[in-house]
């Protein structure tokens, strides 16, 4: 899961395995939650989002699960490939008069062939 601090959590998996990346969020009032992927040397890229009134959403090879009771979000990647190796960030929207995203600290996914 994600944590505040200098050390980036790392998940190491074998190619073909399913990966689960976890995130704890803080704001109960968030309307939606988003996952971003950041490959080495690139900016983050939007993967998938989920509205707060949903508990599951599926995309291509990815599924996001939302558990509002424990404020937990997860990203499941099916049949993980080496190209999935990246840092994954969860984000939640915050409304302080203007909408903005607050990002988690990230989890590094390493996929071995």
């Amino acid at each position, binding site marked *: 899961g994600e944590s*505040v*601090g*200098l*050390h*980036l959590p790392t998940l190491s998996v074998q190619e073909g395995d399913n990966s689960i990346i976890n995130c704890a969020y803080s704001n109960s009032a968030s309307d*939606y939650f*988003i996952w971003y992927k950041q490959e080495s*040397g*690139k*900016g*983050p*890229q*939007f993967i998938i*989002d989920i509205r707060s009134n949903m508990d599951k959403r599926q995309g291509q090879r990815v599924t996001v699960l939302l558990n509002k009771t424990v404020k937990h979000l997860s990203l499941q990647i099916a049949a993980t490939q080496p190209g999935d190796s990246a840092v994954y*960030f969860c984000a939640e*929207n915050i409304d302080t008069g*203007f*909408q*903005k*995203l*607050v*990002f*988690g*600290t*990230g989890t590094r996914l390493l996929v071995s062939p």
Partner: protein
Amino acid sequence: DVKVTQSSRYLVKRTGEKVFLECVQDMDHENMFWYRQDPGLGLRLIYFSYDVKMKEKGDIPEGYSVSREKKERFSLILESASTNQTSMYLCASSRTGIREQYFGPGTRLTVT
């Protein structure tokens, strides 16, 4: 494809210098954002803009200012660079809303 470009990939500046980081998007997006990214801290919002000549402070605006004179361009200014501003700076844009932001490749700034 949406393209967000940043003026430099790497930049080295001295303490006290005025630094300009430029960001340009080519998809007529309304919203633009500046973040800094530090190891283990994720992305933190510095400033954002929802329209030309409009700007709002993010979570860590101290020591920074911004300018948006044209819709496609959003500049981040470090008035007097300090060593604690050494970081990766990321610019992003979005058409409407804030969920799906398109990021540039980042500028790694080192202040010595």
